[in-house]
């Protein structure tokens, strides 16, 4: 024990379907006990990657290693994985007890032990009294808990979750999200979670892997990926960003000006300048919620204020989304509502702090 292992390692894994490459050269590790999320739009290769780990899809090139064993050719039923699907995939003709006991039957567990383990699993998912029922007698959320119980009762090496919350309605989804995370922590099982929902991904993951077009765009802790996107795709996929081309107009001091094409100047930090290796041509990424609107000019040494006019307002309850015309372009701004939102046509100032101006290299990617 002691040393922290990797539950899953993918080395140069490629998946091709004829001429189409679904996953291009993937290098990835899933550390022990950790919760890793594949996030991306549909068709980005995240589900294909999960299915390769599960053994449901062949690997075209590269090595897949689970618990220090290369498993490329190992069939799914010998991999000892827990798999949870979007549509639960419970066995409709078996009772809940038999559903959960299914995997134990193939593991030479005695009858008494099976009963005990199933009971523990049902307790863990907080549905202790449903053993005699059939899947169609349970609600969607309950069925997904049973599917989870069935997957973890076999003590899998890796737990694979394929959009397990997508079929649930919004309130239940949040409840299950908390529940899922609690169970994962309690068991300490390495988990791979596939989703297209960024709030799920940000809330649950130890490590976030953002994918697009079969390529890993960025991986890291959710905060790191959110605050320091390495590409325009990541910046735009996680939340809403204003991405504007410009040029550095300083030497990389504590606060460095960036001149946007079109004339306006923003401020950024030395850390951001070092991220683009002092390249002159850059793109400034400003998240919609990091722009503070005000009816007065509150600019300071590290914050610029840009005068503008509110074009449209979307009322979102606690928040409002504004489209603001300023410095010759449209900006997207999301701000909490203080008493009442700014109205359409209001003259306002947009405040952008240097630490909220993230830089990307200038070439298009």
């Amino acid at each position: 024990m002691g040393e922290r292992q990797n539950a899953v390692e993918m080395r140069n894994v490629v998946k091709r379907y004829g001429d189409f490459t679904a996953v291009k050269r993937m290098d990835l590790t899933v550390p022990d006990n950790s919760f890793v999320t594949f996030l991306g739009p549909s068709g980005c290769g995240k589900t294909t990657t999960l299915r390769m780990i599960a053994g449901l899809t062949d690997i075209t090139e590269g090595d897949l290693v689970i618990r220090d064993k290369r498993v490329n050719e190992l069939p799914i039923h010998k991999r000892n994985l827990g798999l949870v699907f979007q549509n639960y995939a419970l066995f409709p003709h078996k009772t809940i007890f038999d559903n959960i006991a299914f995997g134990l039957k193939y593991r030479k567990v005695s009858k008494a032990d099976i009963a005990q383990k199933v009971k523990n699993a049902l307790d863990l998912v907080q549905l202790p009294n449903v053993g005699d029922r059939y899947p169609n007698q349970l609600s969607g959320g309950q069925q997904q808990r049973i599917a989870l119980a069935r997957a973890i009762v076999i003590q899998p090496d890796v737990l694979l979750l394929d959009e397990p919350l997508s079929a649930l309605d919004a309130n239940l989804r949040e409840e299950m999200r908390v529940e899922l995370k609690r169970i994962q922590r309690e068991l300490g099982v390495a988990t791979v979670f596939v989703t297209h929902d960024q709030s799920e991904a940000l809330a649950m993951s130890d490590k976030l892997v953002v994918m697009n077009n079969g390529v890993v765009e960025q991986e890291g802790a959710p905060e790191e990926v959110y605050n320091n996107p390495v590409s325009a795709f990541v910046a735009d996929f996680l939340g809403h960003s204003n991405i504007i081309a410009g040029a550095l107009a300083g030497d990389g001091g504590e606060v460095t000006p960036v001149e946007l094409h079109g004339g306006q100047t923003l401020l950024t930090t030395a850390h951001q300048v070092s991220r683009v290796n002092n390249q002159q041509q850059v793109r400034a990424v400003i998240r919609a919620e990091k722009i503070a609107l005000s009816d007065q000019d509150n600019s300071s040494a590290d914050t610029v204020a840009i005068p503008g006019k509110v074009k449209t307002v979307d009322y979102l309850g606690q928040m409002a989304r504004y489209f603001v015309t300023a410095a010759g372009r449209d900006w997207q701004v999301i701000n909490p509502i203080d008493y009442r939102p700014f109205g359409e046509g209001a003259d306002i100032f947009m405040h952008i702090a240097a630490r909220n101006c993230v830089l990307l290299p200038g070439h298009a990617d």
Partner: protein
Amino acid sequence: MTNGWSWIRIATILVYLFLFAPVAVVILLAFNANQFGSFPIEGFSLRWFNSLLHNDAIVRAFKTSLLLGALTSAISTTIGTMAAVAMVRYDFPGKKAISSLLIAPILIPEVVLAVALLLFLQFLELPKSFGLLLMGHVVFTLPFVLLVVQARLVSIRRDVEEAAMSLGATPIQTFFEITLPLMLPAVMAGMLFSFTISFDDITGTLFWKPGGVETVPTQIFAMLRNSISPEINALGAVMVIFTVALPLIATAIARHMSAQRMKAKTQN
């Protein structure tokens, strides 16, 4: 509009009368005491049923038909189910061609199929046999099993099987534990179809049966050539009851089983 509907209703009733009246006549005449089948019926009697039981040729034909039907449905259902699994769950070269080939016997007139199989046998210089007859029946009952099971299998989600395999079941174990139980109603229906189709068949059977072997339909056909004996009415009645009762009993059993399961469910 109501007028239009009542016309449709009358037309429907007439069509059904036209279809079922002859069957009813045969069954009624089977209980006629008189030697000559004519209305009104003169007295109720079971004598024709009794004489059926003592007619060796008919009893032999009945046994042949039962055996042939049972073997046909067993073989057809096994092959058809396996073919359906292959068609729905796997990809292989020539899949479309094989699929249309398996369905073809439904589309080709039975006479053509019968002659073709016979010519093929002559080409191989094999004599007619019970085995050939069985083979013929399997060929043209197979599409029914295939279509019914295929339709069911399409509706069984693949991820249920994938879940079973992820839990440690081999593909074979997954088939018997998950897939087969889920498609069992369709397999049963296919079995029933192939049995009744085989039991009823006359065209193909006339071509393929070896000398001296008679099934119930060919036996009736042979007897009709001499005279219309009231025994035939009785035999017809037995056939009708048999082919109608079998599916009904099967449905009743299926209903009973699912009702039991529902009962087990609601107890909790």
